[in-house]
């Protein structure tokens, strides 16, 4: 019981210290100018007014729409393609060079083209997110398919399974943990891409909110936006970790 409290309390020590120091050097002593770094009370006030005006919610939802849009599109492309490439060695050999060249390109490098092709608004952001998550999901899926235990495939075959059933009943379930890992990595990248994309070619979302607030001399809002992104990240991480726990094979 005591241990339990201890384990819950320990992770809180550092954040509390940081907030205290943060308060001391800003609002506490006035050492740092509020335009350089706003204090925690200012940030709370900004958060409160953003919540009351509904801006925080609309911008958060706006960002989440883009994240999910890009992620779902990337999954629709990457998961079936990954299964194909993982299963047919020849196809993988054909595709491998293209994938290796495109994969290391940072998703934000696609921003110029995304604006050229899709203009301003939702679509360029979704495209950048798509480019950011499609490769991790693809690579993880290929890996998952290839790592299917040979003994399980052969067992299924000697139990009378057709090639289609081997794929559907053995390879797919066996690849699920890898695909989930790919999605977990993908969503982290998606979140980063969204913010960058919104800072350039967008007029809504958390990235837009963060950037415009700074130029409007409202650094409190910037910090709120940043913390909001961190919070979304934690929630996603928690959900995916729970999902991974449920997949026990």
């Amino acid at each position, binding site marked *: 019981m005591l241990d339990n409290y201890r384990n819950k309390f320990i992770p809180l020590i550092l954040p509390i210290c940081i907030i205290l120091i943060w308060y001391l050097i800003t609002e506490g002593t006035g050492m740092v100018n509020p335009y350089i770094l706003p204090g925690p009370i200012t940030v709370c006030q900004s958060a409160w007014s953003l919540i009351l005006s509904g801006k925080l919610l609309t911008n958060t939802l706006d960002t989440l729409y883009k994240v999910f849009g890009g992620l779902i599109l990337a999954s629709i492309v990457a998961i079936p393609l990954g299964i194909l490439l993982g299963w047919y060695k020849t196809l993988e050999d054909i595709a491998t060079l293209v994938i290796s060249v495109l994969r290391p390109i940072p998703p934000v490098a696609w921003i110029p083209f995304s604006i050229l092709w899709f203009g301003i608004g939702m679509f360029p952001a979704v495209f950048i997110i798509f480019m950011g998550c499609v490769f991790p999901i693809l690579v993880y899926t290929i890996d998952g398919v290839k790592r299917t235990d040979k*003994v399980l495939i*052969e067992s299924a*075959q*000697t*139990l*009378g399974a057709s090639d289609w*059933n081997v794929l559907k*009943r*053995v390879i797919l379930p066996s690849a699920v943990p890898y695909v989930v890992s790919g999605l977990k990595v993908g969503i982290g990248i998606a979140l980063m891409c969204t913010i960058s994309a919104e800072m350039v070619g967008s007029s809504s979302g958390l990235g837009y909110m963060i950037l415009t607030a700074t130029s409007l001399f409202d650094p409190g809002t910037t910090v709120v936006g940043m913390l909001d992104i961190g919070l979304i990240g934690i929630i996603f991480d928690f959900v995916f970790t729970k999902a991974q726990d449920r997949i026990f*094979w």
Partner: protein
Amino acid sequence: MSIEIKNINKSFKSKKTDQLSVLENINLTIEDGELVCLLGPSGCGKTTLLRLIAGLDQPTSGEIVANGEVVKKPSGDRAVIFQQYSLFPWLTVLQNVTFGLEMTKKGSKEENIAAAERYLTSVGLIDFKDSYPHELSGGMKQRVAIIRSLLNHSPILLMDEPFSALDMQNRHKLQAQLIGVWKRFENTIVFVTHDVDEAVYLADKIVILDKNPGRIANIVDVDIERPRKRESEEFIALQETIVKDLDMGD
């Protein structure tokens, strides 16, 4: 279902030499309902031979005929029970056991579940029907794997040292259970082992393989009446003869 192995040669490409011959000129007939043990030291190609019979690999030359048909690819008629655990980890015991029936579309869902439950009861695993493989012990996993093949009515069971990872007590128990189901279902069984005791306990016929390259050194008919007693004189005598036989090969 009988199995005829005709002039089988199998070689693999290796880095050191051009071709590594694993099996050379294997000729063997396995009668319908016979329990044959392939016995030999590691590296004699006994597992390779089993995989050829299963259709999981193809011979370099020669052919294997099972029930009048040349073996070209794996089929539900020839179930393999592997040395490694081979249950599907994402399926429960019951779902694992009915997997083959679903694949071959034998029977309705209700019939299959009823049959599976009957089989699981007969080996004392009914309480584990909703468990997942990782919750079972090694011996239980192999029993489920055997039930999975039996329920599929595979006329031929190909077993690749399925009990080698178990402790002696469990191994003996499963060997006795295997004889029980074999008598009941009259399958043809090809059982690979390196354990002389296991071969003498189980087999109608022991095929002793030699290594480098793998070929048949001797075929021993086992006429000891079942249930066989390990401490009986004839059991011990046959065991000794075979051990001597194996030693000469080295």
